[in-house]
């Protein structure tokens, strides 16, 4: 066998299409059915609306993809989101802290909570499921304590603009999602850190034997998720004109659903952010479409559950081939 091997066999558009073929067809079929049944679906106003609704879940799911890739999980994203949202709005309305400072504090708080998760997971070996389950309670509790269970209203136009503003015709949350997607994708696919994420999730022992600082990688991943949760918390509270301690309940599960729909393996080491983005889109389009079709919200849950099962099943069948 000759050894003039070409390393640079580019993963072309073709193989990319192949990888996401199932979910792409699903998304396309969904859009087709909806546009045939509802004249409102394919309007630019509605499309922007869907994308804006998808943005929070997508950003959380990007972080969740990292957690799942290293063989972990983060259940605390929804609570951290609520806590940072309430604290930032509280700082602005109660303590008259300037908006940029309050936002900065919120981001640092999210980062800190993520580091806290990561350090405990890395240093004690307690499973991430349990550590982040505890953080889910703690952060939620802190949000209730801080707000006394009441939403903190905020009307400051500068802050509200963060969530409701536009860049040209495009709502800002969509811009955030795109920018964050590009940044975290580059981190995952083009940097050493990203390689190590795959390595750690794929084979922890081999990562240790390769001298990879797995504790640092773990901490960095959970820190990233904390930061992304904080961003979502700030954006969401701005959009809702209030910091609400109850917000974000169940967001962790929507994020996990998007990751799983996107083809990332729950056992770690395999997956990509492109898939997660598609997964989040499917969930968003489904939510929107079921609303447009006037389907009872109780039934919506049931339908979403079956869609997740179906999509993952199709994916697993495809993989066996």
């Amino acid at each position: 066998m000759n050894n003039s091997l070409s390393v640079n066999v580019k993963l072309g558009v073709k193989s990319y299409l192949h990888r996401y073929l199932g979910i792409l067809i699903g998304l396309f079929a969904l859009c087709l059915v909806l546009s045939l049944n509802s004249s409102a679906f394919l309007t630019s106003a509605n499309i922007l609306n869907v994308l804006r609704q998808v943005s929070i879940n997508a950003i959380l799911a990007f972080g969740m993809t990292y957690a799942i890739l290293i063989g972990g999980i983060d259940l605390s994203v929804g609570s951290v989101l609520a806590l940072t949202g309430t604290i930032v709005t509280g700082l602005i309305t109660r303590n008259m802290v300037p908006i940029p400072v309050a936002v900065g504090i919120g981001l640092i708080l999210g980062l800190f909570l993520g580091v806290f998760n990561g350090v405990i997971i890395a240093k004690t070996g307690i499973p991430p499921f349990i550590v982040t389950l505890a953080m889910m309670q703690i952060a939620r509790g802190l949000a209730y304590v801080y707000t006394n269970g009441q939403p903190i209203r905020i009307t400051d136009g500068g802050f509200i603009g963060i969530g409701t503003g536009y860049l040209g015709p495009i709502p800002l949350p969509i811009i955030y999602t795109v920018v964050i997607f590009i940044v975290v994708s580059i981190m995952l696919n083009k940097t050493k850190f990203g390689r190590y994420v795959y390595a750690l999730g794929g084979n922890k022992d081999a990562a240790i034997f390769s001298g990879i600082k797995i504790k640092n990688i773990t901490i960095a991943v959970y820190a990233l998720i904390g930061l992304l949760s904080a961003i979502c918390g700030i954006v969401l509270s701005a959009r809702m004109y209030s910091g609400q301690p109850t917000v974000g309940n169940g967001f962790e599960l929507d994020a996990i659903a998007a990751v799983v729909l996107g083809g990332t393996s729950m056992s770690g080491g395999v997956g990509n952010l492109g898939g997660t983005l598609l997964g989040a889109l499917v969930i968003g389009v489904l939510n929107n479409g079921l609303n447009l079709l006037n389907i009872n919200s109780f039934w919506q849950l049931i339908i979403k559950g079956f869609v997740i099962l179906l999509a993952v099943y199709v994916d697993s069948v495809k993989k066996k081939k």
Partner: protein
Amino acid sequence: MGSPILQMRGIKKSFPGVKALKGVDLDIYPGECHALLGENGAGKSTLIKILAGIHREDEGEITIYGEKKIIPNVHASKELGISVIHQELILVPYMTIAENIFLGQEIKKNRLYIDKQKMEEEAQLVLDRFELGLSSKQNVATLSVAQQQMVEIAKALSINAKIIIMDEPTAALTNRETKQLFDLVEKMKMKNVAIIFVSHRMDELYEITEKITVMRDGTYIGTCNTNETERKDLIAMMVGRTLNEFYQKRTHDLGEKILEIKGLNRTNVLEDINLTLHKGEILGLSGIVGAGRTELARAIFGIDSIDSGSILYNGNEVLIKKPEDAMNLNIGFVPEDRKRQGLFLQETLGFNISIQSLKKCFRFIQFSKTYENLIVNEGINSLSIKAFSSKQNINDLSGGNQQKAVIAKWLALNPKVLILDEPTRGIDVGAKSEIYKIISDLAASGVAIIMISSELPEVLNMSDRILVMYKGRITGELMSKDATQEKIMHLATGGINE
């Protein structure tokens, strides 16, 4: 001799793009142990999988007890009395031996409740029949790998298997455990069970088999009586050429001291370890499994902490607390279990080779793909790793090429000291010889090598000097010219160096 229990004639099997079997014959008689020998890729696994009902043959005939049979699935294979003992054991760790033996065929009381007592009694009968010295109530998690293997075999025997196929059963066993397994094989032979035995270790074939069938590239080369055939003939049959210099050991002058370990201790694991290593030297580390060889390597490499003792590198005392510290000193470690500790199996060959050298690929924060390709190609070329592309999944490569990839990963860092733990475990003869050449070349270029190996011929032929460990201590040092298998075994079992 009687008539064969199993006859395979002209078995052919193709997979997309590969002709795995091109007409293979096999005759197995009751009460014989029959070896299947061949390099990786020779078609042994495919043949076994056909017997196990995992693959169907494209052409050819299978006759069992004189009747033509087809084996459509795994269940049918078991019905015919065929049992495969896989390399990876498939026992449930936190269940008892009895529960494992009867897994899926539990004995019930009143059609509802599981009759635990009866299962334990029946399982005990099987265990006792072959004098395994195990209690059926024991938890499987408490057993050694060898004992687990015996439970697997007992499980097969409990459903009256007549043909037992063992795929490299001794790969993970110590010498003593191997002996126990072979005792069991002898007992099975007496009870007229036929055994098909796959192993890369020639010595073992001479120990327990009556016949050897050699395969190469999917073709049947021949069947010979073990006691009438010489080792070099077998190798020639396997590789299709004669291997002149199997071990490819070169002698050269040793350089100065590079690594020195003084009074190293790790409670209950390592005790008062002293050793020196010179540039260009191959230091063999021998001993039975559990003697502390891997543990010593892990301590030197900073995976396990040490309680006392010092490590001197180029004459300076150094602290190695984590693998990166060792890597900063240019110490490399090729672990014993390449699948679990050495490789990222879901990734490509290139990913695996460059993973440790990524730091070098950065120009500021700009990641240089070109430089990475350089590292990867250099690794592939210098070790002649056989792959279609560096984008090929590492899991699709043969064991030998996987092992080369692990070594290439380290060579990219230009190690000065390289610790190799069981460098040729589970790889075929041709690849072994190539690995030996790589090790020799490295030593000749001045790299100091610590080679841990359970294969005595390997240690004897490759090392300049041999250290033998027993129960966490170094019990003796032998120069390779004075060393013999007996001397090593004497020291490895707690004897004292005269």
